[in-house]
Structures are given as structure tokens and as C-alpha cells.
């Protein structure tokens, strides 16, 4: 399992397709995290993980080695997530997305749990594009150019999506969690 992603991809392309399972095992957790943050629930996230690796496996010949396998798989996962969210949006006939509840959270939750809960619900305030751009930048460390490529946007549109996402999150979260120390648990 010490082989690089590129080595594994090369082996799959050379005909040893069973090796793809190592890439699945290596990247499942990361793809699941992104998918969960995009959709907000485990069942959808699992479906996205399945679909992501299925697309990656079928389209492996399209993978260009100048980008890392991680960048490429995130790109597929982000697009699978967007496809699912768009389909949901069409089904809902334009219903408003679930808004962040202002109701107090149960006292039994610690501050960090309350923050996590509110953050995940706040993600619903972002458009799908803003959410994808922000998550890829913030959690996956993707560059503006990589995100722009993944989401088929210009660099300016990508930056603006991230700016709007951060602004919305600040508005949703800061009134509840203005803290002087960076870590509170």
C-alpha cells in the first residue's frame, strides 16, 4: 500500500484493474467528508461516494497526470454532489432550502458540538456553487485554479463564490459564537 497514486493508476491502466481497490480504500474517507458537507446527510454522501468512484473507474483514461489523483477525484465528487443537489432542487420545484433554525440547541451539546451543528446547517444557506467552491478551498486546500477547473468557472467567479460563502457563514455563525479565544470546547 506504499505505492503512490500515480503508480496505482498506471497499474490499473496497464490492465491490473483490481489495483483500483487500493485507490478506493485510500480516498473513500476524504470523498465521504466532502460529500457529507455538500449534502448534509450520510445516505446521500454514501451514494455520492459510490457514484464518484464508479465514474472515476470508468473514466480513468481521461485522468491527466499533471494534476494529482486527489484533485481529480475531488473534482468528480464535487460534480456528483452538484448533480444530486440539482436533481433534488428540480424535484422540490424551487422550494426554499432548509434555513438555519434560530431555535436554541439542546443544552447537553458542548460548545464545539453546537458550533459544528450550526455550521453544517449554515452550509444550506450557500448556493450549491458557493458551497462546493468554499469546501474545496477551505477543507481540501484546492487552489483557485483547481476549483475553477473542477466547477467549470472562471477564476473570478470562483473567488466571488468563496467570498460570498464566507460572508454568509460569518453572518450565520458570528452572532452566536463571538469568542476571544480561538478554541473552545
Amino acid at each position, binding site marked *: 500500500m506504499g505505492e503512490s497514486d500515480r503508480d496505482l493508476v498506471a497499474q490499473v491502466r496497464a*490492465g491490473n*484493474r*483490481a489495483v*483500483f*481497490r487500493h485507490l*478506493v*480504500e485510500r480516498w*473513500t*474517507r476524504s470523498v*465521504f*467528508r466532502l460529500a*457529507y*458537507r455538500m449534502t448534509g446527510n*450520510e445516505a446521500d454522501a*454514501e451514494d455520492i*461516494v*459510490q457514484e464518484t*468512484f*464508479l465514474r472515476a*473507474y*470508468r*473514466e*480513468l*483514461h481521461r485522468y491527466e497526470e499533471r494534476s494529482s489523483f486527489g484533485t481529480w477525484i475531488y473534482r468528480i465528487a464535487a460534480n456528483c454532489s452538484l448533480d444530486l443537489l440539482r436533481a433534488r432542487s428540480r424535484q422540490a420545484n424551487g422550494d426554499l432550502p432548509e434555513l438555519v433554525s434560530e431555535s436554541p440547541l439542546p443544552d447537553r451539546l458542548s460548545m*464545539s458540538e453546537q*458550533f*459544528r451543528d450550526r*455550521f*453544517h446547517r449554515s452550509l444550506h444557506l450557500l448556493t450549491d456553487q458557493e458551497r462546493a467552491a468554499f469546501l474545496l*478551498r*477551505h*477543507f481540501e486546500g484546492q487552489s*483557485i485554479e483547481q476549483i475553477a477547473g473542477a466547477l467549470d468557472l472562471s477564476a473570478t467567479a470562483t*473567488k466571488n463564490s*468563496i*467570498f460570498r460563502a*464566507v*460572508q454568509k*457563514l*460569518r453572518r450565520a*455563525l*458570528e452572532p452566536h*459564537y463571538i*469568542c476571544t479565544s*480561538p*478554541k473552545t470546547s
Partner: protein
Amino acid sequence: MHLTEDELILAYYGEAPEPDHLAGCAECTAAYARLANLLDRITETEPPRAPAGLATRVNERLGLPLPQPRWRRVAIPATIAAMLLVAFQLGRLTPVVQEPVAVSFTISPARILEAGLPDHLERSRIVLAQLANAPSVPELDISIERQLAEDLVESNRLYLQTAVRERPGMEAVLEDLDRVLLEVAHTPDTVRSADLEALRRRIEALELLFRVKVLESELRLRQE
């Protein structure tokens, strides 16, 4: 001029347009600290862990099984096939009994069918899934699937013959499986994308992956 919120966001992500200003301006430093405080806390939020066995389920769907030692891949199906053949022949050759006789031990074909068939179906399903999900390339090496199919054809015939007598409900699935396995076994090691696509369509039209999976699950439930 102080940094805008957008510029502070860029600074947080290491793309500050004016890093010198940020370092020397108390107001911008304070605004940056507030923003960084929130974004740092967001970084600490962990989503739930991926469900147990998710990677395994993905690999199963792609038809990517755990590699098995060669002896196991050959020995298990061969043993099951041999037992089935013995049971089948016993059933055929045993004359009609006129008088009660003492039988010390009899292998029931139905029991062997239930014991060995789930594994056979699982292996067949893996072959079908590998072909159904194979990458779209002009020419694909399917020598592994072809060889596996070749191994499976013979035992599938025996299961089919036994099923006809013992479990008529299974017959249709095993018959369709027989046709597809035979087709794969007779396919060249390298297949063109159009031929692979045609094979995929046949597998889909027969709903074979689904039907094999259902039968396999039913039999495993019975085993429990």
C-alpha cells in the same frame, strides 16, 4: 486604505494582496483575527466518519474483489463442482428402491446446491460487475474475466442440472447466467468497446446482476 473583507479572506488562504499592510495595521490585524478565529473553528468541525465497510461496498459494486491466493480460487470451485457431480450422478444412478434398505449416508443434491451455490453466484456476479463497470476504452483486456467465466461455466451447468430437479425456481437465473458466462468465455482476451457495450446491454436487458444478487441473498439467508 484598509483591506476589504474579500482581501482578508484571500489573506487567510495565503493569497494576501498586501501582506505588508496587514502586518503593520492594527485595525486590519484585528479584523483579520476575528475572521481567522471563525474560519479556524470551521476547520475543526469534523463530519461523521464514513460508514463502516463503505470502501468494501464500493469495490464490490465495481466488481473489485479482494485478491485471493491462486490455490483458493481454483480449489474451492473445483471441490464444490466435484461434490455436485458426485451428488448428481448418485441421484441419477440410484435405482428405484423396491424394499426399504439401510442407507448409512446420502449426499443430498439440494443441500449441496444450497451450500455451494451462493459462492458460485457471488463469483459470477463479480465477473458480471467487472464487465458492466469496465472503463470505456477502445480496446480492453478482459483476459481475467474471460478465464473466470470459463471456470464458472462448468460448475454453472452442474448447478443448473441440479436446480432443474431440486429447485425449479432457480432455473431461469442459472440459464441466463449460463448464456452470458459462455459468451464471455468465448470472447477474445482483448475486446473492442463496441463489443463490450453490446455485452453490457445484454447483461442489463436480462437484469442479470440484480437477479443473481437476489438469488444469492436468498440462499445466504436460508443458510443462516
